[in-house]
């Protein structure tokens, strides 16, 4: 109250605002600025709490599928633990297809009779290369890199390769 009376009545009535003395204006702006900084910090902490933690298995997780000769040409073998299908094409090349439908993430089963993957959720279908036969799937099934070491097929499940359609360069040969 003492300091107010020193400034005179006309100034003291105005609670805040741009027309106040420079010192008061500075303090108001500084306090509001600090409050804004604090708000951003709180939001940052909240977002960081929700942020997905890094997966321990990501990076170079490898599933050993087995010896090359175990897989017949023109066959599809499911590997539930790695969440992929190992495809051996007719020419003997290997593809590791993700089992996740590219439309909305359902698991696509392989049908041996129809020679295609058919999604049960929205009826997208894929051929043995993972190429889209019928929409709504927007792109071919994702791939995992395949390595063949000493005639043993290994699939790197830590890395996912997105692609639009099948190309022969994607095939790994023994």
């Amino acid at each position: 109250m003492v300091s107010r009376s020193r400034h005179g009545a006309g100034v003291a009535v105005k609670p805040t605002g741009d027309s106040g003395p420079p010192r008061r204006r500075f303090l108001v702006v500084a306090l509001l600025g600090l409050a804004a900084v604090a708000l951003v910090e709180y939001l940052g902490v909240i977002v960081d709490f929700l942020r997905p933690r890094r997966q321990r298995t990501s990076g170079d997780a490898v599933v050993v599928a087995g010896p090359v000769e175990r897989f017949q040409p023109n066959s599809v073998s499911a590997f539930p633990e790695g969440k992929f299908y190992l495809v051996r094409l007719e020419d003997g090349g290997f593809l590791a297809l993700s089992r996740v439908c590219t439309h909305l993430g359902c698991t696509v089963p392989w049908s041996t009779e129809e020679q295609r993957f058919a999604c049960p959720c929205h009826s997208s279908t894929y051929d043995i290369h993972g190429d889209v036969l019928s929409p709504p799937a927007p792109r071919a099934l994702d791939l995992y890199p395949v390595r063949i070491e000493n005639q043993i097929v290994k699939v790197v499940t830590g890395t996912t390769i997105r692609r639009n359609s099948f190309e022969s360069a994607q095939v790994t040969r023994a």
Partner: protein
Amino acid sequence: MTGVFLRIRRSISQGPFLPRTDHERKRFVVHNFLLHFRPVRIHDRTLRWTHTFGLGGMSLVLVLVLMGTGALMMFVYEPSPDRAYESILRLQQDVLFGQLVRNIHHWSANLLIAIALLHLLRVYFTGAYHAPRQFNWLIGLSLLVCIGVQNFTGYLLPWDQLSYWAVTISTGMLGYVPLVGTWVQQVIRGGPEIGRATLLTFYAFHTTVVPALLVGFMAWHFWRVRKARGVVIPRSEGEELSGPPERVLAVPHLLIREVVVGLVLVAVVLVFSVIANAPLADTANPGMSPNPAKAPWYFVGIQELLLHFHPLLAVLVLPLVAVLALLLIPYLLYERDTSGVFLMSRKGRTMAAIAAVTALLATPVWIVSDEYWIDLAAWLPNVPLVVSTGLIPAAVLLAAIWGFFTAVKTRFSTSNDEAIQACFVLVLVGFALLTVTGVWFRGPGMALVWP
């Protein structure tokens, strides 16, 4: 000794337990923590059952029932993928009335969505979004969003096949949102796929974050009703509410009706929950999607959109347009204040009926022809899919709605207000039909079937 009890009793409240005179009743409303959300006196017309159908009160009762049963289940449920399903089984088999409590929670949650939507329609069709109730419409929409999030997060918690795949599909939709979609999807899932982190996140939202928001928004919503002097007063077209209002005391006239509606509702939910068990499928199996994999009924309308539009349109653009339209309803330029008049006017009722019939005819025709005949992707092979199966049909749809709007205005020379209401009815009935189609007319592989 009695002196102590008397002093404690006085310290809680001064008035009598049950008010007997009008003076005591007025004091009772003002001095009671729960009752002071109501005006002391209300217009006697607002008491008419067919004016509000008690839908807002029903929503409150259901939220309270959900909080009670939810709190009980929290003592048994374990939010981790390897324990969740087992703990639900334990709840149903080993806990006294465990199955019943879960049933009540499940059916109340489903009923709450329906009741809240009907409440929204009641508010719209009685014009209760004009000033001073404009902002309360937005608070109501926030409450609807909270209820939707509660149903969605609650859906995952049993960790059965239904919940796992419904949440996989719904969060999969986020992947089509440009720029931020994948990031938001990862935050919601707590990782690249549904797992331990997803369940924990959903549990925290379902049991803490959203209920807290819900309580806050509800208090705000009720307070705004109180500040608007109760619900909108029904009147007939052109009638001016002048002269001395016929007002009655909120206690007992309003309170007794609210109690009756609440008790009947609780009885209905209880009886239904004794008869019908909440569904529980097999435990979640990430290796096998069920066929067909449908979303819960309140999301089936959007799932049906996915079968007709490119995901970018079905998931992002069209819902965004719809939400924006809903938000703007109280702020459009209206020619008259029609608050309290059911369906605006005589002409408004006719137009609403025409809109409903138009949607009833047009929607099935469109669904069936899109299923068997229209194939824009094949007809326009050189155009990107997002244009041929997304932008083009969406533009046609929006143009059709706009065309309906202008046609109603010119052909029947209605006011802007009545034409806007007709469009609302058109979209509403169309979306309802999409939901009906998704629930009953979609079979394996999402093909059209007879129910």
